[in-house]
């Protein structure tokens, strides 16, 4: 054997020996290769039709879930339904007999959710779902630039499907945000604490009731209401016509004035949520179910990080969202990917209505939402565990109160998104704080940075300021911006003027700033719990008598100011 040939044999042997060694010696193997190794994602093994269903091992597989599990039609259905029921059962938030509003957009995920609820309610009593549903559909045609003719056509299809479900339904147009009261932005306290024991007791007593009443009987509507199939809500869009042209005009004007698609989408979501929460409150629903799927929530999580909503991810993407207080938003579809939803809807004939949205046919870089969607979905094709990894991360997010606010109230909420404000008003250390305070102090008016002092009575409503026109508009703008969280402020920058916003936003902003001013004014007269004897001596030097008198009066009668 010649020397080079011998060398080849020896190196070949060496390679084969090294290949057999455990992984820890891989770094040695690298020395034998001539160039850098090309790193590619490992090829995902593709299942073939010859395989059988991974669950029952007999059926012909029709769909591939996750990275390689092929399911047959029946096993897929069981798997899908089980996920829905497990999500509801695991979280134990929905008490038996509770009224739950299903937010249906006509799209595949929410249609699937409605269908699951329908099927769940009609099962045999042991496994039957126990809450009382209603459906709401929000017509957003005006914000998306749809013509009246198209909207009427869509609504006809929508009503057909709603009637078939047999649940009480509500169709509202987005234009109705212009007639919302400012109280929709208030955070009412929840009615009952939903603890584990409370849930178990509720379920037990419900089952006992059912037993006593003789078993059968659909967990129907609360006694005294019309049976579902006869009930239809007062819908302003009924036979007679649409919401007033003025309101439609105002809504189009608002959305046309917004400069970026990102801000449009965010505002649309905010207004829609307010409207749904308002309808839920007025009709006595304490829970709202939205059909956001796993894929959508993964995209939403990343998008919200880019939008500056990192502090609120747990509320935006978690199972339950209690920021509105008495109405809790629940996301039962958060474990289902869009692929599973689409397959289920196709295989089992779930009806849905297609409506163009605000970002239909928009190019990929039109908004942060679209960009993130394209990014995540493209990554998903190469790495099929992307969406589930992001989802698992979102499950671990905890709703913690802000540091320093461990006891006592959590502080003011953002005017639009209702989350706890994440901006320190006295924030002079960061660049953002310096920027926003300088922005406010540049307001050209006679004010010296003090919020609008009310010359009229404090109390409900009328914050009609008495100053001149120009100064007032600037005040209102500053007044609103002050009460927004970081991401809402950034969004509002894309609105050249805050005037087209629905009146309830402006009214609530003024009300809150009034309240803040008043509470600041009477701060020194308030008797605090840790009242020491020195309290009396902290009174103003110019008026010691009256302060002491007020304090004494308070003590005697037992009221605080």
């Amino acid at each position: 054997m010649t020397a080079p040939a011998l060398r080849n044999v020896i190196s070949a042997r060496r390679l084969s020996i090294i290949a057999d060694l455990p992984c820890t010696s891989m770094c040695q193997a690298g020395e034998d290769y001539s160039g850098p190794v090309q790193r590619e994602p490992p090829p995902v093994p593709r299942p073939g039709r010859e395989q059988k269903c991974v669950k029952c091992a007999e059926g012909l597989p029709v769909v591939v879930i996750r990275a390689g599990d092929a399911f047959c039609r029946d096993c897929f259905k069981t798997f899908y339904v089980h996920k829905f029921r497990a999500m509801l059962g695991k979280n134990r938030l929905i008490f038996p007999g509770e009224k739950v509003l299903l937010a249906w957009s006509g799209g595949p995920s929410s249609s699937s959710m409605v269908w699951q609820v329908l099927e769940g309610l009609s099962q045999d009593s042991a496994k039957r779902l126990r809450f009382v549903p209603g459906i709401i559909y929000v017509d957003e045609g005006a914000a998306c630039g749809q013509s009246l003719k198209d909207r009427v056509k869509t609504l006809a299809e929508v009503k057909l499907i709603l009637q078939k479900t047999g649940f009480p339904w509500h169709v509202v147009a987005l234009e109705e945000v212009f007639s919302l009261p400012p109280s929709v932005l208030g955070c009412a306290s929840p009615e009952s604490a939903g603890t584990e024991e409370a849930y178990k007791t509720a379920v037990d007593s419900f089952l006992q009731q059912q037993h006593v009443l003789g078993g059968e009987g659909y967990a129907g509507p609360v006694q005294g209401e019309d049976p579902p199939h006869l009930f239809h809500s007062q819908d302003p869009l009924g036979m007679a016509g649409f919401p007033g042209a003025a309101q439609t005009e105002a809504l189009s004007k608002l959305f046309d004035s917004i400069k970026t698609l990102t801000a449009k989408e965010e505002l649309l979501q905010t207004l829609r949520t307010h409207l749904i929460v308002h309808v839920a409150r007025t009709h006595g629903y304490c829970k709202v179910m939205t059909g956001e799927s796993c894929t959508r929530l993964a995209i939403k999580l990343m998008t919200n990080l880019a939008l500056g909503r990192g502090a609120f991810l747990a509320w935006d993407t978690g199972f339950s969202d209690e920021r509105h207080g008495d109405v809790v938003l629940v996301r039962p579809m958060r474990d289902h990917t869009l692929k599973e939803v689409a397959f289920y809807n196709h295989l089992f004939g779930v009806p849905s209505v297609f409506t163009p949205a605000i970002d239909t046919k928009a190019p990929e870089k039109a908004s942060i939402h679209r960009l993130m969607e394209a990014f995540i979905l493209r990554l998903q094709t190469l790495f099929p565990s992307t969406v589930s990894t992001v989802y698992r991360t979102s499950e671990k997010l905890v709703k913690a109160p802000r540091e320093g606010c461990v006891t006592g109230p959590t502080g003011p909420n953002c005017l639009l998104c209702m989350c706890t404000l994440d901006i320190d008003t006295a924030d002079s250390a960061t660049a953002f704080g310096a920027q926003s305070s300088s922005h406010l102090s540049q307001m050209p008016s006679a004010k010296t940075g003090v919020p609008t002092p009310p010359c009229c009575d404090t109390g409900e409503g009328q914050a009609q300021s008495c100053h001149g026109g120009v100064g007032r508009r600037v005040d209102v703008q500053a007044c609103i911006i002050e009460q927004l969280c970081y991401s809402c402020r950034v969004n509002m920058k894309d609105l050249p003027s805050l005037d087209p916003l629905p009146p309830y936003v402006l009214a609530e902003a003024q009300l809150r700033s009034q309240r803040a001013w008043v509470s600041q004014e009477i701060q020194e007269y308030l008797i605090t719990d840790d009242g020491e004897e020195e309290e009396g001596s902290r009174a103003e030097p110019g008026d010691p008598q009256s302060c002491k008198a007020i304090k004494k009066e308070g003590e005697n009668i037992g009221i605080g100011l």
Partner: protein
Amino acid sequence: MAAPLCVEVEFGGGAELLFDGVKKHQVTLPGQEGPWDIRNLLVWIKKNLLKERPELFIQGESVRPGILVLINDADWELLGELDYQLQDQDSILFISTLHGG
């Protein structure tokens, strides 16, 4: 030499917007030298059926991420994806999952 094929191509979930709103299309694919597979079908669709915005439907050789393909009501991943060879009277369904919620 592949004989002309008759297949049904359907669009759902909003994808039909790119095809003039028409959901079902009965198409006759002309004969050609190599066999018809999904890859060729996509090229054919892009040339003959797609009315606007090709980038919203096709990306490179394949469909845009987020568009599901069902061949005779089964996931195309089980059948070889782009390499599946079309048979006469097959039904190909493209569902866009990107729309709505």
